[in-house]
């Protein structure tokens, strides 16, 4: 056999006219062949690269979290070092696109083995079979130390459908300079937190001092209407009655909660740029840091305030209360999807990634709250203002159990959208509290029935 290389190789097509570079030009057939080959390779590549593949290969979709990303990468490297032959591939997924992305992937059975998702999304996927039960692969009592509200999200019919990674809730931020001028002292006591009427009075005074507004609320987009729900529950209301089907938002307590909130906008204590739909990720913080409001209702994300305003100019108190205390529940959960080719290995990795040491390291870096009961800010060792994180940790105990149950339902995302729609209409002055309650109640009936 003659080796065909170098100058010994005959020209491929001696009769073909040379191109302007002197080399033989591509033929149409050659181009078509190359295009067909490329397309086939691309299709095959696309088919092989997505979703759970080899039995020793785990794909893990995570959000675009600047702190979480490196942390998850570190954990993946540790696991691969301990398990030669196993590979873990991290896939960043923009948070806003998670649903569209994941639903279509699951439908095509091409979802990653593990997905890190927000707590509000978990209910849908555990209910519709998008995630698998990993309870058998976890050590006994693995979730015993977790917050009950978070356990309610992932435990279903005796199975475990995910492992909470972190949590968060809302409390009241205040500008110390503005409160000093008003002459109001923070309570710093969960049981004696300001009442709804008191926070309104403070907001009125703050508006007088700022010359703009009194209060900002941590809405971030049209799906964040659920961040109003603590008001409903602290006024003694609820979305549904105990049967879980009959809307209860039209009850007197619900109307009272809606009316209290409506007045905040009608009196321009909250700016119109801070309604559910007008708000962006940083709207509430921008209003707070620029001194246009004296109070802000938001979650524990105050690391972004560092280097923006001096520490002595702001602080955090517990969320106001009315007939009872309440706050919202957020955070993230890692789940194993039904597309996983090796759910046992994925569950083993999840257990490895979710040891208390690793979870505490993550929340220490991110400033979020550990998903466990009985863990204080001192236990975690937060570097920045641990005393304020502790207030959020204390506040977490006021998550209404019924609200957490609703959040674990399959339709919670539709409910969030519904709340966003009709609260927004009320906030811009296009609907009364009663009309809003009726519209939401009708939507809730449609969702459940």
């Amino acid at each position, binding site marked *: 056999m003659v080796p065909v290389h170098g100058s010994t190789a005959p020209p491929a097509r001696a009769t073909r006219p040379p191109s302007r570079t002197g080399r033989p030009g591509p033929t149409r057939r050659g181009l078509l062949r190359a295009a067909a080959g490329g397309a086939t390779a691309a299709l095959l590549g696309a088919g092989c690269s997505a979703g759970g593949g080899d039995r020793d290969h785990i794909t893990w979709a995570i959000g675009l979290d600047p702190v979480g990303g490196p942390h998850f990468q570190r954990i993946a490297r540790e696991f691969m070092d301990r398990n030669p032959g196993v590979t873990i591939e991290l896939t960043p997924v923009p948070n806003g696109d998670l649903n569209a992305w994941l639903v*279509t992937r699951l439908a095509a059975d091409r979802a990653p083995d593990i997905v890190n998702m927000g707590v509000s999304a978990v209910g849908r996927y555990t209910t*519709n079979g998008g995630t698998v039960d990993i309870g058998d692969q976890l050590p006994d009592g693995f979730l015993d130390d977790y917050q009950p509200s978070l356990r309610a999200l992932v435990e279903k019919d005796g199975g475990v459908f995910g492992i909470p990674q972190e949590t968060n809730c809302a409390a009241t931020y205040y500008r110390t300079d503005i409160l000093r001028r008003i002459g109001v002292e923070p309570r710093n006591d969960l049981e004696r937190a300001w009442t709804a009427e008191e926070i309104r009075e403070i907001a009125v005074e703050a508006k007088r001092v700022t010359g703009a507004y009194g209060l900002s609320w941590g809405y971030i*987009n049209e799906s964040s209407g659920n961040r109003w729900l603590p008001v409903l529950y602290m006024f003694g209301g609820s979305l549904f009655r105990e049967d879980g089907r009959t809307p209860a938002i039209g009850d007197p307590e619900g109307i009272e909660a809606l009316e209290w909130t409506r007045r905040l906008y009608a009196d321009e204590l909250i700016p119109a*740029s801070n309604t559910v*739909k007008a708000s962006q990720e940083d709207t509430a913080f921008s209003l707070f840091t620029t001194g246009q409001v004296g109070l802000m209702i938001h979650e524990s994300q105050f690391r972004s305030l560092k280097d923006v305003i001096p520490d002595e100019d702001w602080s955090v108190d517990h969320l106001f209360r009315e007939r009872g205390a309440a706050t919202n529940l957020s955070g993230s959960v890692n789940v194993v999807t039904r597309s996983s080719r090796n759910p046992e290995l994925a569950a083993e990795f999840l257990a490895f990634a979710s040891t208390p040491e690793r979870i505490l390291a993550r929340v220490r870096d991110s400033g979020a709250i550990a998903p466990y009961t009985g863990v204080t800010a001192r236990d975690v060792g937060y570097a920045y203002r641990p005393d304020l994180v502790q207030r959020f940790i204390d506040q977490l105990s006021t998550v209404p159990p019924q609200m957490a149950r609703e959040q674990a339902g399959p339709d919670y995302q539709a409910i969030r959208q519904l709340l966003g729609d009709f609260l927004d209409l009320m906030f811009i002055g296009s609907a009364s509290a009663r009309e809003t309650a009726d519209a939401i109640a009708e939507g809730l009936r449609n969702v459940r029935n």
Partner: protein
Amino acid sequence: MSGTETVTPSRPAPAAATGPAPRTGRRRGPTGTRAPYLFLTPSLVLFGVFSLFPIVAAVLMSTQQGAVLGQTEYVGGDNYQRMVDDPLFWTALRNTLVFTAATVPLSMVIGLLLALMLNRPMPGRALLRTVFFTPMVVSGVGVGMVMAWIFNGDYGVLNNALATAGLPRGEWLTSPDMGMVTVVLAVLWTRVGFCMVLYLAALQSIPHSLLEAASLDGAGAWQRFRHVVVPQLSPTTFFLLVVNVVFSLQAFDLLYVLTGGGPGFATTVLIQYIYRSAFANGEMGYASALGVVSTLLLITFTLLRWYLGRNDEDNR
């Protein structure tokens, strides 16, 4: 030009009469007849897989109820019936039509004016062309976020500039009346550059001899524009019209980021309603029905424009 004068252009004689004889001896066998189909095949395959199949699947899904995951149930035309009774669908449809009616002609007219301006010698012409076109290549999400900062009522650039100039602040994103106006302004910024570039290319391809002939016939600037330039731009205008309508009917990312469909439902458009029905509410059947209607809307418009355009051609 007088209507009585008949001008018969001197056409070159058919090639067959003077040129070499056609190669009639060449056998047009199966390869010859198959060749067009072979060349069409890649396009047809791509169209079938990525367009036709999804459309057929969407039509089938529109007759079902249930999520994409889990159980589905055949419901016939219930989703379409529900659509008729759904006030939010009509709101979204109306908003879509208003948005389209505002963005399409405005972007084309402004694009044409810019193209006419940049078609004549002027300093910085190349730079200006780039500047006008750049927004087209910026992602809609990025534009939405920047626009949200510009139009924010409390700390936005625009209102601060207005306040500095002693003018009243605008409720750009917070008033239901202004919401759509703001969205249209934001979209125009991204789209006029695209129209400008295509019109510019079309303007430069108009033969000078036509314009000179019109001048010799005594046509003024407006008459040259109206009777020479505009007809010559007709194919580009038709293309831009269809493409811009498609863009407007599919406008999603910028609106989603900028207003979230608000204030209230003031800027909720059909494509956004489809998205939330599918992915927030998990109602794939209903979302598919909305998608089918949206597609029909687009096809109807395209056929209508094509039909009217054909009549124009016939009358010319």
